[in-house]
């Protein structure tokens, strides 16, 4: 079973994402900010990360840059999932090594399409 780390400061969003991704046969771990997500990654890298941008302590962008510098950190597929929906943000995310980008609000179809796009499904 593939693993996905869901990083979002909203427990409601994490719950919705968990339900969708479990439906797509992923095993889920959750983190509420970038720093906690990095700790999870240090214990073991997931196959996928669904990543919010704006979070307290460490935001998603910083997390991504840190992840990509870790040994093996280039392997997990990172899909942003954020309300930041302008081209500038998307371009920055891709430049920092994001594989896909979901603009909130999202639903099962979008998550499934994007995970398909990066070869996770």
């Amino acid at each position, binding site marked *: 079973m593939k693993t996905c780390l869901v990083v979002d400061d909203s427990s409601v969003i994490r719950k919705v994402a968990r339900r969708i991704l479990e439906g797509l046969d992923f095993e889920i771990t959750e983190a509420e900010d970038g720093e906690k997500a990095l700790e999870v990654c240090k214990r073991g890298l997931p196959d996928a990360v669904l990543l919010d941008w704006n979070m307290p302590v460490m935001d998603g962008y910083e997390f991504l840059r840190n992840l990509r510098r870790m040994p093996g950190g280039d392997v997990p597929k990172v899909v942003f999932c954020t309300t930041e929906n302008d081209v500038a943000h998307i371009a920055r995310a*891709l430049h920092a090594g994001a594989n*896909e980008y979901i*603009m909130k609000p999202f639903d099962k179809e979008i998550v499934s*399409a*994007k995970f398909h*796009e990066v070869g996770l499904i």
Partner: protein
Amino acid sequence: MTPVDYEFLRKFLKERSGLDLSADKQYLVESRLIPLARKSNLAGIDELVQKIKSGAAGLASEVVEAMTTNETFFFRDKIPFDHLREAIIPELMQARAGRRSLRIWCAAASTGQEPYSIAMCLKEMGAALAGWRIEIIGTDISQQVLEKSKSGIYSQFEVQRGLPIQLLVKYFKQVGEMWQISPEIRSMIQYRPLNLLQDFGSMGKFDLIFCRNVLIYFDQDMKTQIFGRLAKAMEPDGFLALGAAETVVGLTDAFKPHPDRRGVYRPNLLRASPSIVPGMQQPLKAAASPAR
């Protein structure tokens, strides 16, 4: 809705658009036509039927439009676009190296995602096609969806279904809450209204026809008839792409499946009249159940 009204609408829709409704699709008709009746200040479907019977042409085409299914998304099913990139276009480029031009037809273009996906695919092939004259024609029975296609404007929801993020950033511009595809891609496609039940001989010959997820709404005879006319609208070495749940098998001998590209068909140049191929008539009947 009374059984009589339902029967009238079934017959009407079949004649006008080829839509083949089974006897139990009342809920579908009601869910699409009750809102239309309300919008037109009519009491209900019975009054709508009365108006059509008395010759209200505008309302009649609105009923046809309301009953068409326009579901589509960018790079739908993905695989046909892999075939396009990896097999169809490379083969056509070889075959057309002399004239350096391609004619492509999306026969049920809906809201434009399919022709735009093809256009982006070709653009992404870059230098290989530089200097080629490429004509992409998108047709649909519904005027409403053609207008949307032409505008090239899609909601945030629509651009997230099937469209890779890199292509969104590269070919779309944000317009308020919406996303508009670039003039460069838009200018590659011409949109025209067309009912597949009517003659399309005037459109000329195509190297590639996408006719996906529209024939499923037609009955067997109409499918056979349309395949026959599609074959005539195609170059002898052209390609036909059908939807994932569609096939020519058992319906026509005008096309044959591509040996290793699922969903892709080629004109069957060796087709013979049934009289000299014994047994041809039988499979036509035997395989008459839809492959959904």
